[in-house]
């Protein structure tokens, strides 16, 4: 089957790729563009390890087809920190020991960033429900939620 040519923007940089009709955005990121920061935990939209933003909206990249991102803005974990250092959320995750194995961490950081852009002052319950689509098997979420709440506070303070 013929491949489709797709022009898109990833983390603000123009990007072109060829993909099969059945390839997911996750396949494209990981296998074609070698952006392996986005992880695959389930391939069915249940675990959130592959979370990215598509035109600012949080999505599971395993549920988006590669051809769907034509003309779109895609945001991945690789774009969270700027060249001169970590994003506050990344720093807070390290400070709070909010990761153990780290496989869910890129997805959770992308989701947290989306949460705090939507709602800079979430309650603990709002944070827990927003992140309910991101599974973590190591931490029991306690330290993740602490890192999210602390990030929110710090970002609000800096605004």
């Amino acid at each position, binding site marked *: 089957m013929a491949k489709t040519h797709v022009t898109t923007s990833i983390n603000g940089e123009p990007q072109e790729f060829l993909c099969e009709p059945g390839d997911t955005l996750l396949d494209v990121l990981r296998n074609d563009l070698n952006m392996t920061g986005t992880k695959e*935990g389930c391939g069915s939209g249940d675990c959130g*390890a592959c979370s990215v933003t598509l035109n600012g909206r949080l999505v599971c990249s395993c549920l988006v087809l590669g051809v769907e991102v034509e003309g779109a803005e895609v945001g991945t974990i690789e774009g969270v920190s700027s060249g001169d250092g970590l994003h506050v959320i990344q720093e807070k995750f*390290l400070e709070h*020991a909010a990761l153990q194995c780290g496989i869910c961490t890129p997805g959770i950081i992308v989701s947290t960033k989306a949460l705090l852009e939507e709602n800079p002052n979430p309650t603990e319950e709002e944070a827990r429900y927003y992140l309910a689509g991101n*599974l973590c098997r190591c931490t*029991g979420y306690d330290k993740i939620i602490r890192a999210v709440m602390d990030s929110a506070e710090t970002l609000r303070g800096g605004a």
Partner: protein
Amino acid sequence: MSEAQEFKYIGQRTVRPDGFDKVTGRAAYGADLTLPGMIWGKTLRSPHAHAKIRSIDISKAEAHPDVMAVATFKDFVTLQSESIAAGEGSADVLDLAKNCLADDKVLYHGHAIAAIAARTEQAAKDALSLIEVKYELLKPVMDVEDAMKEDAVVLHDDMFTAGYEEKPARASNIATRVEMKMGDVDAGFADADVIVEREFRTPTAHQGYIEPHACTVTYDEDGQSMIWCCTQGHFDVRTSTAKVLGMELSKLKVVASEIGGGFGGKTVIYQEPVALILSKKSGRPVKMVMDRDEVFIATGPTSAAKLKAKVGIKKDGTITAMQGWMAYEAGAFKGSPMMPGVMTMFTPYDCPNVLVEGFDVVVNKSKVAAYRAPGAPQAEYAAEMVINELAEKLGMDPIDLRLKNAAKEGTQTIYGPKLKKVGLVECLEAAKNSPHYQSALPEGQGRGLAAGFWFNVGGQSSVTVNMNTDGTGTIVEGSPDIGGSRASMQMMAAEVLQIEPKHLKPIIADTENLPYSQGTGGSRTTFATGMAVIEASEKVVAQVKERAAAVWNVTAEQVDYADGVVRNTAGEDSMTLAEVCKGAEKTGGQISGSANINARGAGPSFAVHICDVAVDQETGKVDVTRYTAIQDAGKAIHPGYVEGQLQGGAVQGIGWALNEEYIFNEDGVMENPGFLDYRIPLASDLPMIETIIVEVPNAFHPYGVRGVGESGIIPPLGAVGYAVGNAIDRKVEELPCSPPRVLALIQNG
């Protein structure tokens, strides 16, 4: 070690050295390696739970232009039954091979039969339908009760129960029977004023790591074949894979990628030898990554179990006798964690009369793998539920009842030795004084409490500390870092070398850069690999002192080392560690220290958890409203990651107690092999998990460390189970307390 050690770095909450890579997505996990020319492998799995394989025809697949290699059991070398070290325990090499690719029988839904390599993952997947397998269906045996019946269909006609004085006349599904006892339980029960006896069931549950099993391999006829994979123990992957493929260890390098969770489940091989066969046949590097449903149907899980617990007690709360019975599912091949179940069941209690009988039973489910304190959660769940019921019957506080009978230094265990100094009493006292236990239970809610015991293990760890010419260093270790253990290695080396942790970089070496190291499991890494780090660092300090002494024409005994500076006690001279390292080329060559140890003296870690729940009377849904985990760490090297172990263990246990279970249809096919239907806890399901770290030092570790990774998963089953029963005024026996089961209890009593 002394009781009150002063530490300079240990006990701090440093930022982990691998943290930057893990929050930026740069860390490379099992599926993240791509090699030039690489192709993809996929596995054909059995749709049936139990069948004879009449024939496998791979000719159509081999002829397809996309297909570059096909592998079946015939590609393994001819193997004899032989026990080898595999993962955290031992396994029969023939069973291992037959689990990687079925021989003449499929023994569970999902059992691997063949594998195909093709240019893309999708092409490999599509080509699987070209393999033709003819089956003769057999009746699946899906639980221990059926499997243990006299007339049960037998999975292995060459398996005779071990553990009876005379070899049984007939093959059966019971691999092993064990009985451990001390004292006289009949006399003990005769002395009791109150006896409670109950039966319990726990479900098949999966470790549930988020990262699927993955590997990328290259096969090279001249040697230097390579496996890159996510594993808790890459040296054991090498041993097992080399064995089933008939390779020399020197011809196979295994590189441990970053690992996305394991919990015991990533201690065995599945795809690795198959991928190497595909690589050998195709002449290409091969990547294999499991889909999530493959992870559920063909890896892990832990044993479903049927258990009985009977405990007798006097009115004053003295336990007089404890009796247990358990049958654990091993899955398709023998080797459930029944033995540690027997050994741990009543160990939190000091009782002279104990009898426990256990059975290891094969059924048509995937072969169980280790899962955090393997075997203990099921057995101790049964014991703790009965202890709580006795406390209720006597009108005694459940902590007071446990304190009255708590295991402590000198308590005789059922498995052999008397306990050394342990921290159960301290954990119980901390629980009693905790804000949680001191708080009133909200109206309508239920509260449960349970204790847990796990041995922890020591074992082999190899470490080299290499000093650089600027006085910084590299800690080369062989224990994959699953939960932040690099940070503890860094801190322990820093403590010995008396320099800031950030100047020391821990790396996980591959199998060619260090001698054998056991995997990360059994709560052993911070304890055992930590001991090796300390010893290797001490060798560095000894060399630094010798070099300085030589320069100053004094003996090594005349120099002191503190705060990263070596001083001449017989004069005024001093040098920094960096100066000694910089000058090393002129004083005898570069400085490094190695320690290849077999650590002994692992110290048990006791845990006590408190759980409050609210139950929706209309739906049976249970919400954990408050939870506290208390555990003896011996010494918490990095308190943040110790708390993380306590919280993570607690939440896995909560999931096991509340929702997680394999659901099979009548044909033995798993119906919920995905995270939507096999429901592990979500952020929105939980409250904060309060923690209290108790520190009763382990006398056998220089800093007093006990492992903390495993005990935390034991108490939740009893704490949650009892809390649910308490909330709905019913006796919970079967886990999980999922909505339909709880609703049935509420409605039917």
